[in-house]
């Protein structure tokens, strides 16, 4: 629901309202020549006048004299690490004097977080992570606690990168649902849209003026342009059958020869959920922390089973990743695991392009 227009000069009021409601704000900021998400106290930390240039294997930042805060496409990460922690303890075991072992859950109370500047692709990815971590046979209590304490301020995407293809997967560039507030960024401010009661509560505290038809038309045309600018696409049909019918395709060998099996793609992917668990024992042996951390199907250990590695060759790992992401996800979660964010393309050190590989293996229309 449209709430009104917020001038850029009043953006700090949004942060203040969220702070007062008890949230720590997380937002985009420029660091190490990339847009990253971290604690945001002041509006001055936002990446004003920053533009990105992304191509296969490349991410570069350019400075512009534009007044906008959100005139860039997603950097390496946004939402995923705040819900699915890259590393966290699960439980602690302690050896008592009588040889007994005591187990205790380790779960710090979740901190209310408000994430500013979430893109449509990441909202779709969040929905998929919700399905994985919350809607299976065993819900993950840590993810659940953080999810319940999350406030989302989406910003519709108006500046896609060359690597983006959310329009073809149906996940963007407009944020359709799953947010508390959504913003259209214009040169002088923001059209504010509410998506929840909590969002309405925050919007009520902002100095909003009624939006004009001209502003609405401009906002819509920017989103429309953002969709049209995208040159990459994934075949929109369900690729499961095509992929599993092509397990012996020579392209696996070819892409396996280029792939470094580094796992960058799975780290930046907003839907990848694999993680491993390991014990870290105190030096005196008195207690041990059982922790989990992100893992990747590109590692040697991922498919290790009593003395052998099932996916010993890189071509098998790439095939596992792609057949899962674009194939088996349909069986497991009712849709593809790709939301078109393009991160795996930009952050692949050798520039492997998932949209090219999918077409090479499954057929269909090439990018252009």
């Amino acid at each position, binding site marked *: 629901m449209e709430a009104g227009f917020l001038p850029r000069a009043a953006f700090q009021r949004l942060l203040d309202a969220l702070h007062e409601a008890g949230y720590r704000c997380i937002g985009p900021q420029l660091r190490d020549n990339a847009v990253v998400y971290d604690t945001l106290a002041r509006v001055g930390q936002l990446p004003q006048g920053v533009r990105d240039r992304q191509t296969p294997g490349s991410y570069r930042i350019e400075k512009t004299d534009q007044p906008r805060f959100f005139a860039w496409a997603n950097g390496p990460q946004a939402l995923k690490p705040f819900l699915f922690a890259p590393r966290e303890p699960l439980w602690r075991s302690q*050896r008592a004097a009588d040889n007994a*072992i005591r*187990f205790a*859950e380790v779960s710090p109370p979740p901190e209310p977080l408000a994430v500013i500047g979430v893109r449509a692709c990441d909202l779709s990815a969040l929905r998929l992570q919700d399905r994985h971590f919350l809607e*299976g046979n065993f819900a993950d209590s840590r993810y659940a606690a953080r999810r319940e304490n999350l406030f989302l301020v989406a910003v519709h995407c108006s500046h896609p990168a060359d690597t983006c293809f959310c329009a073809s997967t149906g996940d963007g560039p407009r944020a359709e649902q799953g947010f508390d507030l959504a913003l259209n960024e214009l040169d002088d401010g923001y059209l504010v849209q509410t998506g929840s009661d909590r969002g309405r509560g925050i919007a009520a505290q902002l100095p909003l003026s009624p939006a004009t038809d001209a502003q609405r038309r401009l906002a819509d045309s920017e989103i429309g342009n953002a969709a049209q600018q995208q040159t990459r696409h994934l075949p929109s049909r369900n690729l499961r059958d095509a992929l599993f019918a092509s397990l012996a395709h020579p392209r696996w060998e070819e892409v396996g020869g280029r792939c470094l099996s580094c796992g960058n793609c799975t780290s930046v992917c907003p839907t990848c959920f694999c993680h491993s668990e390991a014990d870290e024992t105190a030096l005196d042996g008195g207690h041990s922390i059982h922790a989990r951390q992100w893992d990747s199907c590109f590692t040697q250990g991922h498919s290790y089973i009593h003395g052998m590695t099932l996916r010993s060759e890189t071509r*098998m790992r790439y095939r*596992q990743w792609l057949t*899962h992401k674009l194939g088996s996800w349909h069986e497991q979660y009712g849709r593809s695991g790709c939301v078109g964010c393009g991160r795996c393309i930009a952050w692949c050190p050798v520039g492997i392009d998932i949209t090219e590989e999918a077409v090479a293996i499954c057929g269909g229309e090439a990018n252009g």
Partner: protein
Amino acid sequence: MADPHLPQEAEVVERIQESPTIFTLRLRFTDPARHAAFRFAPGQFNMLYLYGVGEVAISIVSDPEDPQLFDHTIRVVGRVTRGLAQLKTGDRLGVRGPYGRGWPLALAQDRDVMIVTGGLGCAPVVSVINYVIRRRERFRRLVIMQGVKHSDDLIWRSQYSRWSKQPDTQVLVAADVGATLWPWHVGHVTELFGKVEMDFPRAVVMMCGPEGMMQVAVDHLLERGVREDSLHLSMERSMNCAVGLCGHCQYGGKFVCQDGPVFSYSEVKPLFGIRGF
């Protein structure tokens, strides 16, 4: 929300050395209420936690109706199992479970039952054999096929002799390498399918072991008229969480820890035998 990741303490009540590298731990939860509430089905597994080292998925081999103890038969293959082998009576470990889908025992009622195992993968199916033997009247003919690399690897040897003397029961054992006084076949267990006497089209087959062995057995059995959805296999994949979250055990669109480890052949057929899955 209860944490599905958290183990509970159990005590080693008895430890049995089955072979130089295989041992059985007979366990009881130290919390009596937890022990009383513990229920499992043959073919399900627990995550066993060795203090300070880590967890490993091991199937439960004892009878589901034994209220006293639950047993795990373990082969020493890696870091955790090597450590578990050092545990003695009275020692403690962590246990969480049971997890997964077990053997289709309801489906097998009033039908011929065939159990096929190879390598050292016999533990998960021994629970079924014992289950059937103790409830013999519920099932028809019982055929047990077991292959091992070396005759010394056959554990529970006396049990096989005892089972072979049961009425309406056929036991076929083979070792790739035999030894003096080895009473069974020398060669691959899959060479013995010609000797099986059973109502193949109505039989329920449960198998466990190396996938290469299972593939050969599946081919033989399908040829003899066993239905694809009556053939059941216990699959093994890397497991960290056992609750369908960590992603290691994915097999196409299945999570082996939740959807398996026991699958009908029709469920796994599209990927079965393809290296890398």
